[in-house]
């Protein structure tokens, strides 16, 4: 219990810190912020959120409906392949899109020189950002809506048809409203990612709170300004969190119809062709084309770029992601165990709070955790100097501590989900059976729980590992000197517009990201009945 409370407190620290920043106002900076920066930031953010909500909603729901409820050629392939864009960080899709579609990019050049065509819409625009974010984030809605449709869509639709509704009417009047909580939850997750995104916004030069926090941090060297911006961003995030939690409580799982497959709607050849075309186009634009382009660019630069420095980036990425993932898994396991030992409403809220970090943008966590650690550092140094004659300027600040703490807060939920549900599958009877057969507490853990949780722990670790590898703002803002990673390398190259040279580290991140998707799909298909 105490432990769970401590983890929950760790999540609250950055929030408290960022809000308390209003206590010490730096007059000119705040004036500058409110006059020139804030109106644009708020406007940009609102447009972005609105656009992405519509984008992921339309893409996610329509694709989920097609793969869950309709039968068309290639459906089984699309069923999992449409999740692949999850492996592609939005910032990768972003720079590939710009590289391809920019004025100097191959498409426009070809149109201009071959056909004399100009005037293609500018990709570096609000519409461009929304398009890229939607393509990168629709799988959140797709995945969760697909499950909702698969578990209750077929039965509900048949009931609607038996009451005289056409299939189209049935979809809009029954299946869609029923799946609304799921769709809303998926959309809120996508919107949280949107609010948290830093890399894409930086590449598009689209000013939002995350990029503003970064600038306040590095260009203005103003921690209070960064913290104040962060606290405003948290307000946006909290709205999304409230909506997400509310829709989650409305989700009620119906029984899985075993015959769902046989109830799929057989599309006519023309419609099936359209479905194939549509799903294929989304997959191509969101995954196949970017990945191909990355591969092509990588081929061009690999001879020059793949030097010892590059291996250092990769090694740092793997090391950090590994350490972070281990911490996440260990903490998530302890938190889930605490819930098992002391179930109850209080524990449920503590767990919820402790796993709320996934909603906080990395830039916010970086600021919110750096400030207290720096304060602690100063206190330690002062104490050290007074008592032991310590001579130095930093103890904790230059270490990995802030970065790892921020990773832990941000990705604890990623690890907690699979571990908690895995632990729930071990019924009380299994525990009691083992005890009746003469097993004590230690044996219970080593002979029953850990073997039974192995798959869950692996999934949790893999998910956290990949998320940390992709992570950009925390790494960028809190890394100790010399700790450049693949993601940092991507940021630096894209900042200079060198798309080709950003391809190699991106490709490495993407390949690592595909592993857990394959793992999860494989487990889903081979799960023990």
């Amino acid at each position, binding site marked *: 219990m105490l432990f769970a409370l401590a983890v929950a407190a760790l999540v609250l620290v950055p929030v408290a810190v960022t809000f308390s920043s209003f206590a010490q106002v730096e007059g000119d900076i705040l004036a500058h912020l409110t006059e020139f920066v804030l109106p644009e930031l708020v406007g940009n953010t609102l447009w972005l959120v609105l656009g992405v909500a519509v984008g992921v909603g339309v893409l996610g729901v329509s694709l989920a409906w097609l793969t869950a409820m309709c039968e068309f050629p290639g459906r089984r392939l699309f069923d999992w392949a449409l999740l692949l864009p999850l492996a592609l960080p939005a910032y990768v899709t972003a720079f590939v899109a710009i590289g391809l579609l920019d004025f100097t990019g191959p498409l426009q050049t070809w149109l201009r020189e071959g056909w004399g065509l100009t005037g293609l819409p500018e990709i570096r625009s609000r519409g461009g950002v929304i398009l890229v974010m939607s393509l990168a984030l629709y799988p959140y809605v797709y995945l969760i809506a697909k499950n909702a449709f698969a578990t209750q869509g077929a039965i509900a639709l048949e009931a609607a048809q038996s009451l005289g509704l056409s299939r189209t009417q049935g979809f809009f009047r029954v299946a869609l409203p029923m799946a609304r909580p799921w769709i809303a939850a998926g959309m809120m997750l996508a919107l949280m990612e949107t609010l948290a995104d830093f890399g894409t916004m930086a590449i598009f030069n689209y000013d939002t709170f995350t990029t503003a926090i970064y600038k306040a941090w590095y260009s203005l060297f103003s921690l209070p300004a960064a913290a104040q911006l962060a606290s405003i961003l948290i307000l946006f995030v909290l709205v999304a969190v409230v909506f997400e939690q509310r829709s989650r409580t409305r989700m009620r799982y119906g029984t899985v119809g075993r015959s769902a497959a046989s109830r799929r709607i057989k599309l006519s050849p023309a419609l099936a062709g359209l479905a194939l075309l549509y799903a294929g186009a989304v997959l191509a634009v969101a995954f196949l084309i970017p990945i191909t382009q990355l591969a092509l660019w990588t081929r061009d630069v690999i001879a020059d770029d793949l030097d010892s420095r590059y291996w250092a980036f990769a090694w740092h990425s793997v090391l950090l992601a590994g350490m972070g993932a281990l911490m996440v898994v260990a903490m998530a396991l302890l938190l889930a165990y605490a819930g098992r030992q002391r179930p109850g409403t209080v524990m449920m809220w503590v767990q919820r709070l402790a796993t709320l970090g996934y909603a906080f943008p990395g830039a916010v966590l970086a600021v919110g955790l750096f400030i207290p650690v720096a304060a602690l550092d100063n206190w330690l140094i002062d104490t050290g100097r007074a008592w032991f004659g310590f001579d130095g300027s930093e103890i904790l600040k230059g270490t990995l501590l802030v970065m790892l703490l921020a990773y832990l807060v941000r990705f604890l939920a990623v690890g907690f989900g699979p571990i908690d549900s895995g632990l729930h599958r071990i019924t009380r009877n299994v525990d009691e*059976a083992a005890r009746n057969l003469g097993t004590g507490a230690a044996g219970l853990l080593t002979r029953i729980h850990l073997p039974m949780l192995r798959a869950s722990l692996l999934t949790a670790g893999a998910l956290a590992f990949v998320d940390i590898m992709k992570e950009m703002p925390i790494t960028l803002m809190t890394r100790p000197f010399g700790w450049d990673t693949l993601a940092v390398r991507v940021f630096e190259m894209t900042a200079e517009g060198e798309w080709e040279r950003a391809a190699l580290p991106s490709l490495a991140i993407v390949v690592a990201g595909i592993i857990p998707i394959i793992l999860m799909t494989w487990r889903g298909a081979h799960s023990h009945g």
Partner: protein
Amino acid sequence: MAELILDSVSQSYAKRQIIADLTFTLPEGAIGCLLGPSGCGKTTALRCISGFEPIQSGEIRIGGEVVSRPGWMLAAEKRRIGMVFQDYALFPHLSVADNVGFGLRNDARAARQARIDELLVLVGLSAHADQYPHQLSGGQQQRVALARALAPRPRLILMDEPFSNLDVELRERLSLEVRDILKREATTALIVTHDQHEAFALADWVGVMHQGRIQQWDTPYNLYHEPGNRFVADFVGQGALVPGEVINDHQVEIELGVLEGHIPVECDASGCEHCVRNCHVDVLLRPDDIIHDDDSLLLAEVENKAFRGADFLYTLKLPSGQHALSLVPSHHNHAIGEKIGIKLAVDHVVAFRRE
């Protein structure tokens, strides 16, 4: 193998009494059964015996050793009790053989393997030793669970609703099989169920439980033929209560005639003499107490009938309007509304004072 004794055991949870004054003795090697509707406290009783719930009063003894008393309990893993759970609770990450061998960790390898083989033969699953629980049918999983519980030669086996996840046909076959297996291992066993067919097929001793109390602890035969109170009479077997009047201590008159036998009517404070004559009682008539006889002058109207294959269960309306049940061989197919001849064949008179 050991004798199990519960001595006025009570248990309450959040001020609600779950079991009250539970007392029974299950002899060594016998199979006992706690039978009752859901919520009667039978599962709680099982959990008290297995050591997962504390008790507030009384004492639980296994083989003469006290394992639970108020404020103290022997840890579950030290009781040497084998438990078969309703959902079997097999370990999904272990093979059938490893599940069975789980409790034999401290045995030498050869002895362990020999015991696993022996049990797999006993439950007829030798061919499935290397399979995993999810590859087995429900009945097979249940036998693995039983073998796993039996493996460490526990002093006592507990089974919680062991057949409730199986379909009806399998239940009957398996309950006979399980009895056979338990008897061959000569294990003392206590089973909890809400199904009297299961209880009767399996058990030497049955305790009918209601509202946390044992209503009667007896053999299945006695429970059916000499139920101690109205609840037991109603819960065990089918039957109807018809009004009667006591003539003397061995005769009672109902509308179908005079029944002879011991009249076990409880006496009140004023003494038996007083209540014996002209005392109003309800007499239990089992479906096998009323025989169909075409020559009989006693007539009853068929109000409802259920075809059960070998016989019909007729619901009869007696001249007074009272209802009674009768089991009739199935070639006597009478229509609803028809009047048929009946006669009494009551071996055990069961009567309860009218309240």
